[in-house]
């Protein structure tokens, strides 16, 4: 193998010394790619070059050959660096496999079931910016027509954030009450978070509780992005804001319950800041942009609207999600 490569190289060198054509250089570049793939180190390339030149022009004076010997010495560090790269690439590959497994475990561990309630159409999308999602959606519902949804965002991304998600999931599991008031749910989760994680991590959460019997949505927020309410009758938007500290800041934090009456065709869009703070070439994404998209698609199903918003907004960000992107849509039918 090495001998074939050596004679190929000598051939290219001979032609290049004769012709200096672009084609010779192209042949050289292809060979050099092959060198790299077959772990030929740069110091070996110099040595091969010296041998090839000696074979072609053995008559050259000693200073030429000495000069190559120094050059071999100079290339040893680059050879070491190249071997380091190979080992780093391999490690990265192992890590990729580990992260894929981890994000699969995260998915199974945190899976939640979309409410099936008469008169309520639910759409969901959640796309992580990196391997592991730091946004979280949790549903709880019952046969009497209550449907709660928590939309949470851990401040911070990646593995540390992913670890916190399970705490939220198990906290919500332990409540297990689809009719619970948002203020109570946020209060309980706040105390768990405050107790379990240290001062550098915070979580924002929107909690919405829909009651199919009277069509009211009760909601609360722990420092979370406001949800949007689209009013079908007037074709207008309202922001659903409620006061409350981020989860984990203080065990004494109090949360509000607010409520709105939903009518046929109304949409509630809860989201994380990854939806609105996506940067485009011209700056942040404006709420007006989202309004227009929602209006354009308002007659579609909740899931179709969610996917449409993701596609349009991620296109505007040149597919470079800087933050996890999560949307939940409740559509009253």
């Amino acid at each position, binding site marked *: 193998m090495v001998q074939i490569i050596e004679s190929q190289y000598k051939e290219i060198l001979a032609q290049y010394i004769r012709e200096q054509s672009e084609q010779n*250089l*192209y042949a050289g570049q292809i060979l050099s790619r092959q060198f790299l*793939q077959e772990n030929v180190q740069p110091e070996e390339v110099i040595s091969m070059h010296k041998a090839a030149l000696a074979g072609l022009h053995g008559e050259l004076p000693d200073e030429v050959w000495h000069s190559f010997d120094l050059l071999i010495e100079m290339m040893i560090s680059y050879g070491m660096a190249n071997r380091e790269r190979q080992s780093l690439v391999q490690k990265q590959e192992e890590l990729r496999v580990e992260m894929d497994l981890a994000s699969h475990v995260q998915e199974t561990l945190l899976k939640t079931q979309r409410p099936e309630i008469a008169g309520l159409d639910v759409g969901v999308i959640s796309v992580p910016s990196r391997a592991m999602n730091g946004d979280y959606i949790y549903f709880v519902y019952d046969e009497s027509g209550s449907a709660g949804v928590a939309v949470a965002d851990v401040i911070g991304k990646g593995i540390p954030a992913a670890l916190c998600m399970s705490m939220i999931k198990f906290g919500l599991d332990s409540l297990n009450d689809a009719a619970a008031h948002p203020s109570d749910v946020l209060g309980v989760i706040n105390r768990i978070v405050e107790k379990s994680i240290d001062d550098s991590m915070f979580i924002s959460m929107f909690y919405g509780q829909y009651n199919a019997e009277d069509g009211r949505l009760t909601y609360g927020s722990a420092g979370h992005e406001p949800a949007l309410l689209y009013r079908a009758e007037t074709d207008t938007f309202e922001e659903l804001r409620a006061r409350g500290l981020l989860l984990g800041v203080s065990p004494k934090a109090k949360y509000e319950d607010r409520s709105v009456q939903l009518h046929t065709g109304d949409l509630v869009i809860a989201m994380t800041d990854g939806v609105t703070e996506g940067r485009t070439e011209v700056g942040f994404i404006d709420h007006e942009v989202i309004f227009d998209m929602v209006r354009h698609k308002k007659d579609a199903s909740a899931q179709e609207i969610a996917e449409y918003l993701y596609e349009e907004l991620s296109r505007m960000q040149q597919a470079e999600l800087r933050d996890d992107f999560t949307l939940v849509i409740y559509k009253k039918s």
Partner: protein
Amino acid sequence: MNNQSSVEILTEWDIVAARQLGRNVAKELGFGTVDQARITTAISELARNIYLYAGQGKIEIQRVTEKGLNGIMIVATDTGPGIPDIRKVMEDGFSTSGGLGAGLPGVKRLMDDFKIETILGEGTDIRATKWLR
């Protein structure tokens, strides 16, 4: 100020022609030997991607001027299948392995500016610029 010329990439010979065009322009602009080699290597990688994966496309070489700097821009366009996951092909560790889009992170490193747009089923447009300092 723009000044352009281009090579259709249909056969492997066209890769050499695109390199030659790029090298001539780079030399005229005053790039040194090392930068000439980097620019032609970038052209090679882009042209090979067209040749191997898109089947059809072209390499344009433009002289560009911006904020008082002169530069050379390689524009590689094809009507191939597009790249399904740009994030993935732009990741390290792929640049020296084989496969679709191999070498794009390498091209990005050889040049100063790099921009890629791709639409599935329609094709890919890559622009890479090197400035003369």
